[in-house]
């Protein structure tokens, strides 16, 4: 009959009404109900320590500055496993994130040179930062080839730790002293298996594969001329730490014995924790080590650290470590909401946020005001030694070159070649130099605007 609603008509009207009613709710799922700008923020903080901290800092922003400025941070977790590849894929797509955070520095200059990132120079004023706010080594890491490529949240460097159950005295002051003590603490069982080592230098020399990141600077190595922006790989000085490694290969009766010791130990972050599990007397570890030890293992390791800088024979400089680890905030070249992303980045690198991050983890902070905050020293007394070493300029940057990933992989192989007695140090470094030279020539052919090798 006319005017009566039939069943089909009713259902159609109900469905249309439901669709209209769900529209704002659907939009709300992607952004805050009151936000005008959503910043997509990719970060790797899924670990036990970093995950809750990032959530806290993002929530602080969203509930505070973000609400006032109409910015909502959409935080997306990207696992650290191969996140450099995921980040690259994301940044090169049309749906690039607006801001990314890395747990590493290795690929930053490669991204910068290849146009994946946009420089942040224009936003320094908005960020409220200037060069004098930073430690020189931290500034050098972000200010490369005349532009600023990211904002450091923290950086990592190593000092010599020792297991006080094994070594009860003061720390060694020189490589000779370290060698003497290492020989004393190296033990084998009745079937000749290595069960304790003084130190396994190629496995306990920092994040960079083969330990060249720490033992290289200690032995006076310099792989890259930062002033000229050129590689200087196969030099007599650079070979010395490799020659020293051979001493330990002989001490253990072959590299395989040390590998066996390492293989029996659980791994954290992909690195064998032979020091954490009490297998070695000494180790080069970072400022993050004490709190990470508590968070990731239940082992009761009694340790100590000092700011003593190891001296090596014939080396006048006293350097302890290449800065190989760092957290950075980077601006992808295809980011859409740049100003909003910078506003959020400003919050993340504020003194309060940096201290909030560092307190549960233990990190070097790039801003002097943050690093010397009394809360840090109260909570992390060992940072006193790291700060002393930083003041002594004991830490150097890793080679600030877009070819660093090629160099790093090649150096890892070079260390293997030497410690497996397949090549001499000179032959091994020659191989590294050739690989890097090939990468440099390929790079220069297509990147004429990047002046550094």
């Amino acid at each position, binding site marked *: 009959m006319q005017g009566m609603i039939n069943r089909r008509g009713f259902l159609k009207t109900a469905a249309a009404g439901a669709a209209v009613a769900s529209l704002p709710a659907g939009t709300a799922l992607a952004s805050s109900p009151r936000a005008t700008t959503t910043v997509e923020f990719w970060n790797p903080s899924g670990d036990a320590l970093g995950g809750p901290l990032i959530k806290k800092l993002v929530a602080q922003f969203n509930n505070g500055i973000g609400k006032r400025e109409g910015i909502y941070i959409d935080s997306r977790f990207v696992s650290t496993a191969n996140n*450099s*590849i995921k980040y*690259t894929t994301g940044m*090169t797509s049309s749906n690039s994130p607006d801001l990314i955070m890395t747990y590493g520095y290795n*690929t930053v200059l*490669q991204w910068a040179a*290849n*146009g*994946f990132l946009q420089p942040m120079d224009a936003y320094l004023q908005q960020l409220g930062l200037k060069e004098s706010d930073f430690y020189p080594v931290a500034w050098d890491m972000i200010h490369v080839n005349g532009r600023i490529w990211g904002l450091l949240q923290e950086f990592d460097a190593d000092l010599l730790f020792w297991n006080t159950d094994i070594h009860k005295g003061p720390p060694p002051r020189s490589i000779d002293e370290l060698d003497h003590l290492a020989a004393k603490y190296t033990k084998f069982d009745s079937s000749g*298996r290595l069960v304790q080592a003084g130190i396994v230098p190629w496995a306990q020399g920092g994040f960079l*594969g083969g330990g060249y990141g720490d033992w290289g600077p200690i032995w006076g190595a310099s792989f890259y001329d930062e002033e000229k922006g050129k590689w200087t790989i196969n030099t007599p000085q650079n070979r010395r730490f490799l020659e020293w490694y051979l001493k330990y290969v002989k001490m253990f009766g072959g590299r*395989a014995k040390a*590998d*066996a*010791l*390492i*293989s*029996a130990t659980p*791994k954290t*972050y*992909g*690195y064998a924790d032979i020091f954490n599990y009490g297998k070695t007397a000494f180790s080069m570890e970072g400022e993050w080590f004490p709190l990470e030890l508590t968070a990731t293992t239940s082992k009761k390791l009694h340790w100590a650290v000092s700011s003593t800088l190891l001296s090596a024979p014939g080396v006048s400089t006293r350097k302890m470590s290449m800065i190989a680890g760092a957290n950075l905030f980077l601006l992808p*070249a295809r980011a859409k909401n740049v100003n909003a992303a910078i506003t959020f980045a400003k919050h993340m690198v504020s003194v309060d946020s940096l201290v909030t991050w560092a307190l549960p983890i233990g990190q070097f902070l790039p801003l002097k005001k943050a690093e010397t905050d009394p809360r840090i020293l109260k909570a992390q007394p060992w940072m006193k030694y790291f700060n002393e070493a930083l003041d002594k300029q004991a830490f150097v940057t890793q080679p600030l070159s877009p070819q660093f*990933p*090629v160099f790093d*992989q090649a150096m*890892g*192989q070079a260390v*293997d*070649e030497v410690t*497996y007695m*397949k090549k001499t140090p000179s032959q091994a470094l020659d*191989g590294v130099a*050739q*690989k890097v030279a*090939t*990468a440099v020539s*390929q790079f220069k*052919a*297509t990147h004429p605007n990047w002046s550094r090798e």
Partner: protein
Amino acid sequence: MIGTMPRSAASRGSAWQRLRRSEFPVALLFISPWIVGFLWFQLYPIVGSIYYSFTSYNIMQPPVFIGLSNFQILFGQDPLFRQALTNTLIFTAVSVPLNLTIAFIFALLLNQNIPGRAIFRTCFYFPSIVPSVAMGTLWIMLLRTRGGLVNVFLGFFGIHEIAWLSDPNWTMPALILVGTWTVGPTVVIFLAGLQDVPRVLYEAAQIDGAGPFHLVRHVTLPMISPVILFNLVIGVINALQAFTLPYVLFGNGGNPGGPLNSALLYSVQLFQVGFKQFQMGYAAAMAWILFVIIFVLSLISMRLSLRLVHYE
């Protein structure tokens, strides 16, 4: 006016009308999703990668044409390319025949009429459905030098701990060993082939006095030779492109090529070049070299099959 039209035009008109009346347009419509997918997701990338192999290309900036430079560097200056290719060819040459032999023996056993045969088949096939990453992670634990189950087992026979994943002499055997765990699909295909062999041939051979070895040698193998060829070609292709297992075994926090790059396989190096060094043109050149190698090997297999494979 059809009557005054030239003969050829009239023929064309009727042919067009025949086409229009035929099912061809409808068929085309139904397969168009596949055609579009093939053109966009397969043909375009294939043609694109040929072009990129002659360029320097990092995705963000336009490709720069550099001619044969990528190929010249690959063959003349890149030691990792040579090492990856050598490792991959060795891996293929050893693992493929080994896996075929193991799969054939398993299939022969599973073809027997024994109680619980279905359970055994499931057990043999199960490892191949475990995700590769999970499998790789499991094998890292099994192959630990000290405390790993493989070395514990070998220890019962007095064999001293082998550094499977850290000794450059043992990394390739480790890869080959892990690869044998996924022979399940090959076993299933062999089993299907075995069950297709007419029983009358076995009976006739037994009447002539053939023992088990002769039955396998002169009846089973010739009759399943097409299946062997299929498994061989697929096995070679898969081995030349192996990626996930070696990457998981060695890439966790370390060099994915293993110590001294002794386990660096071609696909892993291609991945490193493309996605860690952002040299997509160079990686495309590597991909095309691999294609040529696979093509040539497949061609050789097909030519050999004319003499060695028995078709009924």
